[in-house]
């Protein structure tokens, strides 16, 4: 993974200040969210179902706009960002979904190369890289397979490969190990750790409270729409850091 992009981006990956979020005219699902996501940092977000994890991630990968507060991504003000600007920023973000969101009519190779193709690159310029990446995630021999013929773990790895193929500066993953067996989950987490070591900023949402400690990441806990910056403990229990509660980390 190239570090060119990161070298020219000394600004924090994201800064959220007093951000709230809601869907339409519904109730506020996230209240007064504050954090600073440094470039190359690694965060694990935990919390019960419905607490607002997915909404927070959606705001990070620009699928949902905050309803109040201030938010910036790669130094750009999200509140003032136009649609095309959002699209351009999304190219710097890789997203891994729990449900993979692969296109069933495209092969694993075609799914992984989608971000590059949509950037207007021709196949000859990226084919080798994509095959190498698929090999790296253990799917070198499944490049021409269609998603419906792949196992859950294989699909997840294709989704991860698609998320990182364009060398994003921020990787956001929502329950990336939620539907794979523990062994595969460990393998995928090692993959994320490797990516972080290569310089990518990672935010991973999970139900596993021990994950942050396992991977040496900063722990975030979200409860009732409030974000808490935790100090992970060996038993995985979330200990709320009162100095970071509701404040920037």
């Amino acid at each position: 993974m190239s570090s060119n992009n990161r070298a020219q981006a000394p600004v924090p990956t994201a800064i959220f200040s007093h951000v709230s979020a809601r869907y339409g005219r519904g109730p506020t699902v996230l209240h007064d969210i504050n954090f600073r996501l440094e470039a190359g940092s690694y965060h694990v977000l935990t919390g019960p179902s419905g607490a607002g994890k997915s909404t927070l991630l959606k705001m990070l990968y620009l699928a949902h706009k905050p309803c109040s507060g201030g938010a910036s991504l790669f130094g750009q003000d999200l509140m003032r960002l136009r649609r095309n600007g959002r699209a351009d920023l999304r190219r710097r973000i890789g997203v891994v979904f729990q449900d993979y969101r692969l296109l069933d009519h495209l092969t694993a190779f075609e799914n992984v190369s989608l971000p590059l193709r949509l950037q207007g690159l021709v196949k000859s310029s990226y084919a080798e890289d994509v095959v190498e990446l698929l090999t790296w995630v253990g799917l070198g021999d499944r490049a021409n397979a269609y998603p419906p013929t792949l196992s859950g773990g294989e699909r997840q790895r294709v989704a991860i490969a698609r998320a990182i193929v364009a060398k994003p500066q921020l990787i956001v993953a929502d329950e990336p190990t939620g539907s794979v067996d523990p062994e595969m989950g460990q393998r995928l987490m090692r993959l994320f750790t490797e990516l972080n070591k290569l310089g990518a900023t990672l935010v991973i949402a999970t139900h596993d409270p021990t994950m942050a400690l396992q991977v040496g990441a900063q722990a975030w806990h979200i409860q009732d729409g409030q974000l808490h910056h935790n100090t992970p403990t060996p038993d995985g229990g979330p200990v709320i850091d009162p100095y970071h509660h509701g404040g920037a980390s």
Partner: protein
Amino acid sequence: MIKRLWHIWRHRPHDPPMLPRPDVRHLGLGFAIAVIAALTGLMLIFADAAKRAEVHWQSQIAGSLSVIIPAGSVTDPAEAATTAADVLMTIPGVLMATPMPQDQAEALLQPWFGAKGIETLPIPTVVELETDPGAPPTLEAITRTLKDKGIDALVDDYGHFKTTLARMSGAIRTLTYSAFLALVLTAAALSAFAALSGISTHRHIVDVMHLVGARDSVVAQVFERRYAKLVFKAAALGAGLALVASITIAIIGGHDPFAPSLRLTFGDVVRLVLIPPALALVALVSTRIAALHALSKLS
């Protein structure tokens, strides 16, 4: 625009289609577009045929006049016709003055009065004039010259017929062009509706494209390409059907007075050939507008 059309149309075999293969639902759109293209083609051909018929008929009566001597004003119609013809030939601009035989004059009235007993009717004496198209005599000059020679006659330059003909031809063309416009708008609406339906059906693909950084214009282009190609193919089929239909009409039209105008001209073929790209362009624009509008509503 040409660059954009080329970009949409170009074949990149290494790029798999962003959308799944068209399914049976596209047959309905294809059928509708083919019918629209066929009707559009026929409308254009008929509009042109109406204009050709008007020009043909106008040219047939151009340079012709009829001098009508009422039956009650002369005792010997044949002698009156010959005298009138001699007088008319003295008028500058008159090339030929030919008395119409009485039986021919009767034949003109037969469609209205029937053959039986027509000889008992007071049939007027008619002298047909052929005038110089470059310097035709005025109606007043003809009437005055005849009057000076003691011949009380009416002069008909078929002006009312020409006016009616032009009005009818204009009405037919207005009607066909209005129908043509309505058909094109229908094609645009169908394409836009198909694009909106496509975006709704393939929302998961749209979302994935957005999430990997595709701008709305790029996403819209996927649908433009799908529907412009579909419309082009269906319109080509429809234009082909219109071609076959117009050839058939021209053949079975036989000796109908309108038949000469229904013959297929080079201009008609050009119009038919232009229908598929024109409708594809209409589909392209309407699909783009609809798609961009729909995409702007998505998060």
